[in-house]
């Protein structure tokens, strides 16, 4: 187990290095001068003096190897440079916003699993029953409603009409934990509806498949109680594909929360990226892209380690 974990961590570190280098190469090897590109708004040729000044500021005049070493050293120190517009530290802004997006994703995933896993198992145990059909129809609807429609309607119903919760916004946990969680509830639930439908479908088909396996027949042949067969023999094996799907979606949620963050005014990372892309603030874009990529690698590392706990075969490659 330890050897497996160390191996996975080594691979993850290698991937992070590859991502860092790839981003560097894209910036420097793609034809065209980044400084010129940054300053040319609306097709107007930029002032050569301004370009030269920006090149100097970005260190683009130094030899490429020196630039690479400086870039990697700065990254290791956690320095992502500062915004071109207001000199604000990019690392500080990301450090402030990343946890909010991660919190949103984690809360949504937790809700989705709490929703999809038991219901998916239930549906698989009674295939073709009324409950199964109703749940399948609900999941079909959950997958079809766009996330911003769910969010907007949720605001209309729960904030405007029933006045149960505020329409959106953010309060730091340290200032008011209860209010923080209340504000988290709606955006997280909004994501969880679609994600929960995905988990439901995956769980249902996975459990159905495992139910037909020989070792489940063996468990029946031992005379085990149905509840033990389901919980001990079926669900644990069925979890493996469910986790894969969830992990895939976690990765895409990392940047895909744009709409939800917009609807609920949640000051997370994706909103920051949209603004940075709009303003072509290149240190900000690079910093956020790196952060998202590294977070993606780390999530996959976590998933690999969780696999090993669930499925002992994985530990031996």
């Amino acid at each position, binding site marked *: 187990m330890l050897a497996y974990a160390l191996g996975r961590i080594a691979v993850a570190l290698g991937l992070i290095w590859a991502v860092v280098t790839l981003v560097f190469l894209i910036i420097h090897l793609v034809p065209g001068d980044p400084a010129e590109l940054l300053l040319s708004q609306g097709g107007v040729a930029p002032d050569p003096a301004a370009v030269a000044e920006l090149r100097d500021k970005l260190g683009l005049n130094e030899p490429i190897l020196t630039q690479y070493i400086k870039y990697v050293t700065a990254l290791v120190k956690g320095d992502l440079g500062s915004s071109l517009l207001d000199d604000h530290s990019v690392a500080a802004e990301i450090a402030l916003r990343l946890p909010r997006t991660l919190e949103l994703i984690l809360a949504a995933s937790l809700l989705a699993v709490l929703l999809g896993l038991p219901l998916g198992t239930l549906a698989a145990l009674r295939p073709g029953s009324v409950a199964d059909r109703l749940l399948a129809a609900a999941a079909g609807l959950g997958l079809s409603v766009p996330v911003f*429609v769910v969010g907007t309607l949720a605001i209309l119903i729960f904030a405007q009409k029933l006045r149960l919760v505020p329409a959106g916004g953010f309060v730091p946990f340290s200032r008011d934990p209860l209010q923080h969680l209340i504000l988290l509830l709606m955006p997280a639930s909004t994501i969880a509806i679609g994600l929960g439908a995905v988990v439901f479908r995956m769980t249902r088909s996975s459990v159905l498949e495992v139910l037909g396996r020989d070792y489940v027949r063996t468990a029946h042949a031992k005379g085990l109680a149905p509840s033990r067969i389901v919980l001990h023999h079926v669900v*644990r094996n069925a979890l493996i594909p469910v986790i894969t799907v969830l992990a895939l979606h976690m990765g895409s949620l990392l940047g895909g929360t744009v709409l939800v963050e917009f609807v609920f005014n949640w000051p997370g990372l994706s909103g920051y990226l949209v603004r940075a892309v709009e303003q072509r603030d290149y240190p900000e874009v690079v910093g956020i892209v790196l952060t998202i990529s590294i977070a993606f690698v780390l999530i996959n590392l976590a998933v690999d380690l969780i696999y090993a706990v669930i499925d002992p075969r994985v530990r031996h490659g």
Partner: protein
Amino acid sequence: MAARLSHLTLPGALVAGIVLVALAAPLLPLADPVKMEVSARLLLPSFTHPLGQDEYGRDVLSRIIWGARASLAVAFLSALLAGVIGTLFGLLGGYLRGLVEILTVRAMEAVVCFPPILLALLVVTLMGPGAVTLVIALTILYAPGYARVAFAATLTTRGLDYVTAQEALGAKPLRVLALTILPNIAPPLLVQFSLTVAAAMVLESGLSFLGLGVVPPAPSWGLMIRGARSTMEQAPWLLLWPCAALTGTILTFNLLCDRLRDVLDPRAGTVGTGWLTRVMARVLPDAAPAAAPALLRAEGLTIEIATANGRIHPVRDVSLSVAPGETLALVGESGSGKTLTGLALLGLLPPSISVADGRIAFTDRAGQSRELTQLSESQMRELRGDEIAMVFQDPSASLNPVHRVGDQVAEGIRAHRDVSRRAAATQAVALLRDVGLPDPQQRSRAYPHELSGGQRQRAMIASAVANGPRLLIADEPTTALDVTIQAQILDLIAGLKQKGEMGVIFITHNLAVVSEIADRVCVMYAGEIVEEGPVGEVFAHPRHPYTAALIASAPDGVDAELAPIPDSVPPPHLLPQGCSFAPRCARVVEQCRSAKPPLAEVSPTRASRCFKWKEVA
């Protein structure tokens, strides 16, 4: 297929309706979707404006229909472009491999690593918002999906014999691609296309909602939701129309995708009717009381499978009995119904397969005779793994891969005996030692994949005999193992039997195994017992042509696989009118083709289902 095609009617008609209405928008008597009338802003639905007017006084119904046009145009156009480009890349990559594969398929995979909406946003930032940008962004996003489908299908297809044959005949690669591979991958591409249209609509509306998609004042559902959001407090209904239109359309497309997939990937479903026959059996009184104190006696067992095309009976009128300490071999080719018979005895038939007729009397430890076909599932569960145990064919599939071997043995003990976790674990180690697992203390902590095939089967046997069952049903327990391991497992089962009064039903197709381990043998053919008797007598003087052919095809009984009889076992829905074996029988006479032979008594211990048993020797 035709029945499943009808599933497409509803979603297909709905999609066609939506598309038609969108196409006909210019012809319909609708108000101008962009004409503002500020004095009439946020008016409630009226006769001239059935869905009301929006924040600029524009007609909402007209905007919804024109909005559908915008959404569908962007979605269909990008799905089509993505389809053509992606399929082309996938075909080329899959057919030419090498560098082309890297440049096409692998390069496209990189796109998939990005969250879709972020990638679309990047394109929008570079090109400015608008419908053309949307089409380009969505095409880039969805082309990899097609490429992957086409690539995978091309890899499979190009290996097929007829493709290789065409190449050998000198057909040009492009011709081969166009003529053989494309038609083969059309169905998955069709599914992919409808998936893409739905996904593109979601993304288009999302981007428009953010203000980065369709440019106002052009109507778009995403823009309408964005606009209605700002007047949500005064006019909440304005929010409902576009939300309902968008969700309904996507739902319809998703439904079509699901149905399409069902039609193109048909797996016939079967309907379970087992409960009815079980209820009937309980209601109807017993015809005759069970006789003779055998350990297990099955009478007239018939098994039924409910299929979409009616009921079939893979096992018919099987009667067999096992005495304590006796080993009964159930022999037959695959398809003879021997495994289903074994599962039926334990009440483990899969759903949709059930016991249609017959009785199974089992004498339990208390000496009481239990009618197994009439026990409830929970009563049956008490017997399973305790009084009746089963060992299956493939030990690597029959052990749960995620639990330790010792735990899997122990859980069977704890299911029937009130013992502590630790006591059960100790007992499991002792059992593993009894079945000859080396270093049982340590091996009990191992996972199944850490054991060899023979060791896994030993562990399965340990688990089966954990509670000292009175009857062990072994279904081809040695088939999946090496020849040398087979002998060891047979010795193990024989050894376990000597210790007590355990009866064994040994299901196999291997005659050498039968002569080695069994006292009596039942030969099954096409769901029926055709001959029964003591092993020595049956082997020396078979009384059924099938048994005779089996023995003849396996000289010396060594490595006896039942192959060399011409033809194969008829499937249960294509049985001949007369004797099931008649089409393959060398001694067939007219009577065999017209009438079914009964199981005739040859001697007090033997029976044969052949009219001519006296002539077989």
